């Protein structure tokens, strides 16, 4: 389902030194699998997920999704791929501060032409699923870290994605919410989704079908 071919990503740092975030990574992820990426900070986990998830373009190498080389996709094609196939859960939640929970969750549906009532209904169902049915009209600053992460999860699920990419999803939340998240991701996997998680959390290894270890931008 997802393949990378000699994938590398380099950044230019402020001191004009090239930072090689990931190097020559070739891997294959099958459909409906639960995959985790582990490794120390700076090992390239986030960069790898960003490149696989089309949030960033690689410097070298290719990414294949559904047997198509997505590195050659146009900006619009990548947006369509993200809209239709991928849901993201970010370490920092990345919620829009001035929007309420339900507005944040339903934001991806706006350009799809879904009318406000249906958007609200969809958001409400998802927020109830993550046990935030009573926080529909709260803006992010009125929510705890764990609650914000759950809003972010609901948003990631709003388009029924086939691929869910989570970057350190439990690093900014409490143990209980982390447990809840693991349960939810497992449930999504059982419903047919492919899950990619970058994490230090050992609990995820236990449920993962495959664990990739990264060190200095390479898979060990």
């Amino acid at each position, binding site marked *: 389902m997802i393949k990378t071919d000699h994938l590398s990503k380099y950044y230019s740092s402020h001191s004009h030194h090239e930072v090689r975030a990931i190097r020559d990574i070739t891997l294959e992820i099958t459909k409906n699998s639960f995959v985790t990426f582990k490794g120390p900070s700076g090992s390239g986990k986030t960069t790898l997920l*960003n490149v696989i998830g089309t*949030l*960033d*373009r690689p410097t070298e190498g290719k990414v294949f999704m559904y047997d198509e080389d997505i590195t050659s996709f146009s*900006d*619009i094609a990548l*947006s*369509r791929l*993200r*809209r*239709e196939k991928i849901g*993201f859960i*970010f370490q920092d939640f*990345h*919620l*829009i*501060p*001035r929007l309420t929970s339900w507005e944040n969750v339903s*934001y*991806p549906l*706006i*350009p*799809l*032409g*879904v*009318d*406000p009532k249906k958007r609200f209904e969809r958001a409400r169902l998802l927020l109830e699923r993550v046990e935030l049915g009573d926080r529909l009209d709260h803006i992010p600053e009125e929510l705890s870290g764990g609650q914000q992460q759950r809003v972010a999860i609901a*948003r990631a699920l709003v*388009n029924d994605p086939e691929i869910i990419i989570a970057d350190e999803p439990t690093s900014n939340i409490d143990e209980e919410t982390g447990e809840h998240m693991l349960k939810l991701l497992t449930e999504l996997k059982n419903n047919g989704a492919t899950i990619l998680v970058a994490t230090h959390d050992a609990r995820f290894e236990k449920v993962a079908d495959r664990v990739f270890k990264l060190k200095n931008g390479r898979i060990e």
Partner: protein
Amino acid sequence: MIHKHINLFLLATENLLRHRTKTVVVCLCIIAILSPFITAIAISEGIRAQSLVSVKEGADLYIIFDEFGRNAAIPLKYLDEIKKIFGVTKAIPRIIGRGFLQNKLAVIVGINKEDIPKSITCISGRIFENANEVVVGHELKEHFKLQIGDQFSMRGQQRKNFTVVGIFSSDSSIWGSSMILMSFNDAGELFGKQGVATDIQIHSLPGHNSEIATDLYDILQNEPYRLQDKQMIQLYFKKGFMLKEGIFTALYTVAFALGIPAILVASGFGLSERKREIGIMKATGWNTLEVLELISFEQLLISLLGATIAIVLSILWVKLFNGAFIAQFFIAEIPMLAKFTLPARFLPLPCLLSFFFAFILTMVGSIYSSWKASTESPVISMK
């Protein structure tokens, strides 16, 4: 498909309400820039229209003498001959001059009673009938608190006493407001010029102007005269207004140049937050065109709002404050608050252009940064 655009339009509206401070600041900048300009254009158009109407309703030909390249008085000895020219229906001698009534400059028009245009009406009193009787404009009446029956004296070449017998309507032309209308003979006595007129208005049968011009040449061939028709007078008016508009535009450009950066800065308020938001939008499946459409809707709405308020304020500026500060650019020697109703015309084109201009300005302030944020990798924009 239309639902998508409706959604984006509604979201743009909500965004303007959510960012109230920014919306208000941008609107204020637009209003501060556009309002004086719309007001000036409206006043200029109003005066121009009124001038052209008065020219249109006036005589077909104007004959004056020329001395040293300047207008000079024409002797009345030619009047009878002019009246006899075939095609001339009426030849009216006038004296038009300026004089001070105490410290206030007034336009003095001397004309025979039977030649007074029908458009001149009095709001009170009557037209002069006897010697030393005058009709005064509304502004002079207000300034000197003149009443019917009041007397005043004026000094031209000699001092003369006059009795006010009528007041012009306040809605009369801007020139009428400070005008003193008197008999031709009284004006001649006041200026110490008997047997001459400042011009002779010639009303003619349609299509006879060139023949009349030929006959006038025969009558006045040894005299330095100048003949002007309606088209020429209209051209003078237009040129005059273009010059005044030009002066206003030049002054305004300076103020405008200072206002533009303010709009650009205000439009770009919260840029880092916006950049991050665009990154999130892209990460959750929005494409660049959708992001730019949303931004464009926001700028469209804010321009529409700002320009509409600017137009409304301009109308109020003219209606309530009689175009204070701006009217002086177009009408010489009027006080800050003119005492007559200022002619103003709010035409659709300048209003549309104002909106368009506001839209361009706000777009310039936001579109590049938004485009840049939406074409970058979402990872970079979200940072």
